[in-house]
C-alpha cells in the first residue's frame, strides 16, 4: 500500500508514519505543503492508496489541495488531519471531497481506526 502524508510539520509526519506502520507493509511518501503534494501525485509511478492531509500549510493549504485532487481523482481516499475542529470547517472539507476527518490532537489508536475505517469503506465501494 502507498500512502502520501501531507503536513508542514516533519514531527507530525513522523508520528503518523509510526501509527501507519501498524497496517503492515506501507510505502510512505511525504510532502510539506499542497504544491509539493500535487507534484508527488503527478510524478508517482503508481497511484496512492491513501492521502492524509493537514489543513494549515504554507503555499497551498489542505482544503485547496483536496479541491485540486478531486478535479481529476474522485476515488483516492483522502483524510484531513488537522487542528481545525469547527463544524463549518468539517463541512467545508467534506464538500471539497475528503472521505474522513481527524482532529489533532489524536491518539495513535484513534488515527489508526479512522484510517482502517476509510480503507474498508473504499474496499466495500
Amino acid at each position: 500500500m502507498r500512502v502520501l502524508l501531507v503536513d508542514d510539520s516533519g514531527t507530525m509526519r513522523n508520528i503518523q508514519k509510526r501509527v501507519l506502520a501498524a497496517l503492515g507493509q506501507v510505502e510512505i511518501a511525504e510532502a510539506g505543503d499542497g504544491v509539493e503534494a500535487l507534484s508527488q501525485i503527478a510524478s508517482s509511478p503508481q497511484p496512492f492508496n491513501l492521502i492524509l492531509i493537514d489543513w494549515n500549510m504554507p503555499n497551498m493549504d489542505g482544503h485547496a489541495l483536496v479541491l485540486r485532487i478531486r478535479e481529476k481523482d474522485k476515488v483516492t481516499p483522502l483524510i484531513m488531519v488537522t487542528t481545525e475542529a469547527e463544524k463549518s470547517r468539517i463541512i467545508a472539507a467534506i464538500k471539497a471531497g475528503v472521505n474522513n476527518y481527524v482532529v489533532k490532537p489524536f491518539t495513535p489508536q484513534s488515527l489508526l481506526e479512522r484510517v482502517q475505517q476509510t480503507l474498508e469503506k473504499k474496499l466495500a465501494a
Partner: protein
Amino acid sequence: MQATQNSETAINPKLIVPFVNSVRSVFSTMVGTETMLDRPHIKAQPAPTYDVSSIIGFSGDVIGSVVVSFQRSAAEKLVEAFAGAPIPFESPDFADAIGELANMIAGGAKQHLGKMATLTMPNVILGQGHMITRLSDVPCIVIPCRTAVGAFAVEVSVKQLASAEVNTLQKEEA
C-alpha cells in the same frame, strides 16, 4: 493590592478556559504527560516567561497572539516524548516539534472561543531574553503549567471582536 484586583477582574474565563482545556488535552494525548496548571495572572513584561517560545497569531473575529514558552530542559524532554525520539536542541526539527505543540494548543482552543478565527503558522524562538511585541490594548494572561519534567507557560493575549469591529477591519483591509 489594587493592581492585583484589577488584574484578576481583567481575566475573562471565557477566553482562558479553552486554552486550559486544550493544553491538558494536547499534552495528555500527544505527549503522554499530565499537566498541572497554576492560577492565571496578568503579565506586564514583554519578555516570554522561559527560553523556548512558539508564537501563533489569531486573526478574524479573534485577534492577538498566543505564546507557548518552555524551560529549555522541559522543552527537550517534552519534545522527545512527543516525537518519540530525542531531537537535538539546535536542529530545525526541534523548532518544528515545539511549533506543532503550540499549533495544536491554539487550534484546540480556537474552536471553543465561539468565533471564527484563523491561525498563523507558528514561529519558534530559541534562546534567553527574546522579546515579543503584543497588541497594546489587550492584556497578556499567563497560564503557568507544570509537568513531571519541568515548567512551561501559555501566554494568551487575544480579544474577541464585536461584529461591527470585524466589519470595520474588513473594510480597512479591502
